């Protein structure tokens, strides 16, 4: 009786050592996963301990931080005269983000409708890569584009009403940045809507416009809204564009033609000024970062809740 070759040459190893190495591997993979949790813990720990250094100072109060209308951490080196009110920075961030959303949301959504409902396979095959290229353009390049092209053309069309650095050109550049993201996420959501729904709509005599706007978009609404929220938090956290194009003056206004300093813009200015470690001005970095982190974190969380709770499932 001869065994097959494979069985004759087979070395039968003990399974016990195999089980041990298996367990070791699972543990090391679990450690990798733990690293991501550690990063979150690290971010939160850092923000709390370092911004405590800011709020512990006599020059700063919590209510002043939230309600004061001036932010002069960089302008006045003298601590007694420095004012730390987050409002101007929030207002700058809000202006830039609002303009970006006015650009990115409608354009992104309509492009997504076009891609998922109207475009032929051929058009898709070259429009998608173009969107991917825009998504891959480094943000510092878009910031440069804002100074080079958007600002001068805004000044040209408005007879110089816009200052060289202004919230609008930064907002437009951030909008361009968010557009591919809104587009591809909404398109994914709309493509997930089953064909039968569209066929039902067409069967009832709907036009393509009615099918896409009254049937497909509402069906994909949860995905679209979470795409919007993601774009929103991306725009709030966007740094290089605003650092280059929005200006460096914290202003509390709604005028989009004026300079604006955003929260991220302030962080970059502060780093560039190489301020001394350990001063109140330095710790104000972390107070701004806490605000920024809280806003974007809430946005992401709300987006996830919306996606989970309002997800419509079709069989």
């Amino acid at each position: 009786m001869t065994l097959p070759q494979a069985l004759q040459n087979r070395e039968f190893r003990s399974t016990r050592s195999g089980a041990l190495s298996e367990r070791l591997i699972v543990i090391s993979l679990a450690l990798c996963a733990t690293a991501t949790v550690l990063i979150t813990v690290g971010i939160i720990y850092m923000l709390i301990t370092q911004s405590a250094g800011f709020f512990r100072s006599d020059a700063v109060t919590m209510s002043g931080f939230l309600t004061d209308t001036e932010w002069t951490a960089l302008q006045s080196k003298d601590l007694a005269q420095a004012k730390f009110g987050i409002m101007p920075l929030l207002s700058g961030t809000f202006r830039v983000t609002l303009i970006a959303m006015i650009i990115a949301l409608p354009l992104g959504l309509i492009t997504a409708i076009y891609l998922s409902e109207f475009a032929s396979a051929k058009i898709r095959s070259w429009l998608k890569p173009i969107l991917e290229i825009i998504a891959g353009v480094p943000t510092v390049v878009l910031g440069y584009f804002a100074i080079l092209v958007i600002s001068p053309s805004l000044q040209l069309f408005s007879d110089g009403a816009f200052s060289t650095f202004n919230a609008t050109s930064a907002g437009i550049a951030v909008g361009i940045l968010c557009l591919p993201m809104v587009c591809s996420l909404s398109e994914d959501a709309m493509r997930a809507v089953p064909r039968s729904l569209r066929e039902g709509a067409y069967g009832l005599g709907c036009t393509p416009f009615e099918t896409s706007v009254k049937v497909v978009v509402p069906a994909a609404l949860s995905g679209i809204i979470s795409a919007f929220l993601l774009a929103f938090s991306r725009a709030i956290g966007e740094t290089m564009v605003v650092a280059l194009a929005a200006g460096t003056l914290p202003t509390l206004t709604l005028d989009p033609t004026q300079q604006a300093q955003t929260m991220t813009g302030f962080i970059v200015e502060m780093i560039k000024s190489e301020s001394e470690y350990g001063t109140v001005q330095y710790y104000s970095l972390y107070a701004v970062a806490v605000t920024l982190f809280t806003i974007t974190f809430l946005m992401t969380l709300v987006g996830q809740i919306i996606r989970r709770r309002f997800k419509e499932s079709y069989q």
Partner: protein
Amino acid sequence: MSSMPDAIVKQDAKYLADNARRRKQFSLWFYFLCVAIALISVVILVVLMISIWSQGQSRLSSDLLTRSHSELEIERSGMWPAILGSLFVCGTCALVALPLGVGTAVFLEEFQPTNKLLRWIHGFVQLNISNLAGVPSIVYGLLGLTVFVYMFNVFGQIRVNESAGMEIMGYKHFYQVLTLEPGHVVFVPQSDPTKRQTTFDEPFQAVDPDGNSIEISIWTPGTPKPSDPAIRRQTVRAGAIGGTITERSWYYFRLPFDKSFLSGGLTLALVILPIIIISSQESLRGVPSSLREASMGLGATTWQTVRDVCLPAALPGIMTGAILAMGRAIGEAAPILVVMGAAVAKSTGPKHLMDDAVTMPVLIFNWAGRQQDEFKELSAAAIIVLLVVLLLLNSTAIYIRHHVQKAQS
């Protein structure tokens, strides 16, 4: 009967025809609107490319690629140290983020837990990763600054022009002593290269810049100074401390990391980690479960299945995701700016692990923010170089995706 829908009550042929025509017309307009808006993105890309090309093409020369930033010779400034710096920073970032990211993805996708607690942990890690993906990169920059650069100040504060903290390996200290005559320098070879400082109390041997050995004698303060300038040139005050010249090997390592390219690379790794995890998870999810079942059916353990079946099948997808993430890392400026500072005056690439570096986006940011037109043009030229690098990366990713799709179908 009055509650019947409009469409049925108003069975007027003319009304219906008009209504249908109006709706069709509207739909057609909407279609044109869609086409026009979809074309906007094309227009944006074309305007972007053309404006940057026309601004920067005059500066695309060998100087740009081989020389370093220079304030004095703006017309011959270049970006070679920045290219090297980007390479080093992104290399570090890939070395850290890839194993960590793929490991996490494998753990989350392939080792599905059976008991309730573990399932909860899985869900928590998953939620955590999607939250991390939404954290602005500048917050990661501050994390890197606090953790890698200052290490929460555990090792004492960073002082200017002096490396602080714990030096661990790969360094050798030499000393440089300035004699009483200004401009006359001698070097003292150091017998114990691990000591940072020595004070000179006894006569010792030194080397002058030409390599001649000279005897240095000691003058104690309080006693009369030697009057002969020749002797004075070989005399040092008792208790003098020399400035340190340190020779560092490439593996020079110290804590905290300070503003080094290692800090920058580690920070970037944090930024792209969620991206790598999510894309690896997606490509692992794309591996058909029949393959796993076949492997398990042959008696393979879970890890053997993952190693020999799932990972090879998912590899193209993982690689595509990794390359796209690296593209993101190369273009990322904000966290690098926060961790390594905005200074660009550096003439070489990093020499050792703790050396600082300039990266391409930081250089572009610095140049773009200046008043002089020459620097604006330089920054456009540097952008062209950066975009070419990104294009190469992206086309590699597209090639892999395309190639594999063909092979699998």
